[in-house]
């Protein structure tokens, strides 16, 4: 242990010690690299985009490191930087639902369709068994088909368990917008899974 007479450490006064700052940053931030990469893959859907965005995140985070007030929250701080970068990328190529599509989405109910169709008549837990048929890839494809403005809050909610207020801060929109986007994101997932069930022959294809 160093003596207590040393007045400063890299953590207390990082800006004056660039080498100390960098090593302190790496020590704190690099253990979260795997976590951030997985989050980035889930947000962007592409490994190359994910790697780019992770590199950008670390560069930006090193730059802003002296402003980090709570080092124990560094993972969530890094996740926020990464989410901002993903959203910024999406702004360059925004995708939205058409207005008519939104009205249809809001009314969509996978629960009702499965109930009406009853594709597994011998099941004692119809909806659970219906979902269990889907391979992982189908869920991934449905998530990636979501426009980013819906996918990003949904993935952040699932992975980071953030509150609507935190999501609103990260994504720079009102809480009401977060609420409607998360609602539509789930409805979209329901509709994609229903389409997928028809393609796979889990249900009759002439419906809906």
């Amino acid at each position, binding site marked *: 242990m160093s003596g207590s007479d040393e007045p400063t450490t890299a953590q207390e006064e990082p800006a004056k010690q660039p080498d100390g700052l960098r090593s302190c940053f790496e020590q704190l931030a690099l253990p979260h690299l795997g976590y951030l990469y997985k989050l980035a893959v889930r947000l962007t859907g592409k490994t190359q985009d994910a790697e780019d965005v992770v590199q950008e995140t670390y*560069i930006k985070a090193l730059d802003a490191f002296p402003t980090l007030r709570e080092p124990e929250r560094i993972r969530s701080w890094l996740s926020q930087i990464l989410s901002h970068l993903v959203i910024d990328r999406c702004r360059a190529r925004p995708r939205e639902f058409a207005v008519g599509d939104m009205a249809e989405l809001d009314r969509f109910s996978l629960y009702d369709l499965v109930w009406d169709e009853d594709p597994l008549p011998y099941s004692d837990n119809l909806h659970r068994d219906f979902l269990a048929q889907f391979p992982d890839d189908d869920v991934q494809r449905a998530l990636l088909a979501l426009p980013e403005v819906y996918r990003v809050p949904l993935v952040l909610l699932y992975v980071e368990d953030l509150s609507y207020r935190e999501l609103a801060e990260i994504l720079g929109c009102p809480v009401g917008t977060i609420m409607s986007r998360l609602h539509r994101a789930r409805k979209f997932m329901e509709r994609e899974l229903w389409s997928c069930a028809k393609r796979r022959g889990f249900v009759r294809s002439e419906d809906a």
Partner: protein
Amino acid sequence: MRVLSCEQAMKLFFAYLDRALAGAPLEDLEAHMETCLSCCDKLAFSRQLDAFIKTRFAEVAVPDELESRVRQALDRASMES
């Protein structure tokens, strides 16, 4: 207290599951759920669907050389600044 229709109740399901409802809307929804078995089933399905999607997130393999590439990117950024 407002009496909700099933359609109005369903619009609040996800906010309820995400613990984002409070005050009057929460009370209205809870009152509706006490009397509507169909909405209880639908809410349970919404919860089930959330859990299903979360467990089906693809496993992501982290490239071995990712850390060294990030360190190199930090080196380049430090030299440029």
